[in-house]
């Protein structure tokens, strides 16, 4: 009788813990406390390990968050940012032109902090983009697709979200580079 109890307990534990372990075994979490989720170095050395805390660039913050989420430079390679910043008159169907001085300043910032230029997760993002490709849409990259593979396309069509480009709809800390999974809130 006792043996049967222990056998049943062992079976239950095996059937729950092993699958749970397999499901949770994922390299989503960055074990390196010096680097945030997407590559820019966190100089607070782990004080806020899930947050991105660079000073950034004031012109970038003002101009590149006027119409959409402030997309982090480490999400695309330098060549993508260069291409995007020379084509602002046709920026995803809209005119986003800047005066030359501001454009040059922002381009410099983006390129310096692009995927592959700043270590951490950004290096991994750069590796998953074939050198022959110069994506302009972050949502086209394998990194983005892998991170969001659980979501069906219909989720993005919810009125409060609209499209995959609207990061801050589900990631309230997106403009600060915070994409921590436990802070995700997907609107109904």
């Amino acid at each position, binding site marked *: 009788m006792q043996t049967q109890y222990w056998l049943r307990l062992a079976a239950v534990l095996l059937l729950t813990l092993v699958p749970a372990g397999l499901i949770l075994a994922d390299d989503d979490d960055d074990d390196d406390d010096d680097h945030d989720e997407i590559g820019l170095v966190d100089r607070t050395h782990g004080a806020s390990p899930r947050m991105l805390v660079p000073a950034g660039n004031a012109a970038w913050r003002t101009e590149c968050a006027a119409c959409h989420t402030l997309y982090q430079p480490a999400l695309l390679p330098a060549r993508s940012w260069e291409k995007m910043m020379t084509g602002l008159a046709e920026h995803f169907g809209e005119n986003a032109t800047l005066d030359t001085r501001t454009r040059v300043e922002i381009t410099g910032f983006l390129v310096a902090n692009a995927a592959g230029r700043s270590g951490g997760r950004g290096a991994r993002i750069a590796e998953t983009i074939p050198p022959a490709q110069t994506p302009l849409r972050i949502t086209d990259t394998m990194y983005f697709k892998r991170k969001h593979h659980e979501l069906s396309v219909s989720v993005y069509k919810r009125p409060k979200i609209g499209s995959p480009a609207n990061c*801050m709809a589900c990631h309230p800390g997106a403009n600060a580079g915070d994409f921590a999974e436990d802070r995700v809130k997907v609107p109904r």
Partner: protein
Amino acid sequence: MKSVKLALVAVLAAAAPAAAADSALLAKYAAQAPAKGSAERGRTLYSAVHADKQGRDVSCATCHTPDPRQTGQTRAGKPVEPLAPSANPQRFTDEVKVEKWFGRNCGDVLSRACTPQEKADFIAYLLSVK
């Protein structure tokens, strides 16, 4: 007659400071235009629908909503603060910012630059929305 004129001047003097920041820019555009800014023409301009370069129907109201006192949103889903100064007193006080957005948005909506007359009419309309 003199008392009427004095009364008129007094009324205008009282009203001037309130509208000073906005009307400086309006006055500047109106000076470059054939006629002074018309709120009526501005309202037509604001709500007229055009086909953009991608063939989509678009107007100023697309992002700024039909009621410029309301918060609008961009195509990417980001909120846009109200355009009417009565709801958002910062509007039309920064000439560089205003010129930047006229440049971009007239290009998107009208597929060309706005004329000084259109800019004056546009601001006149938005100043009239209380």
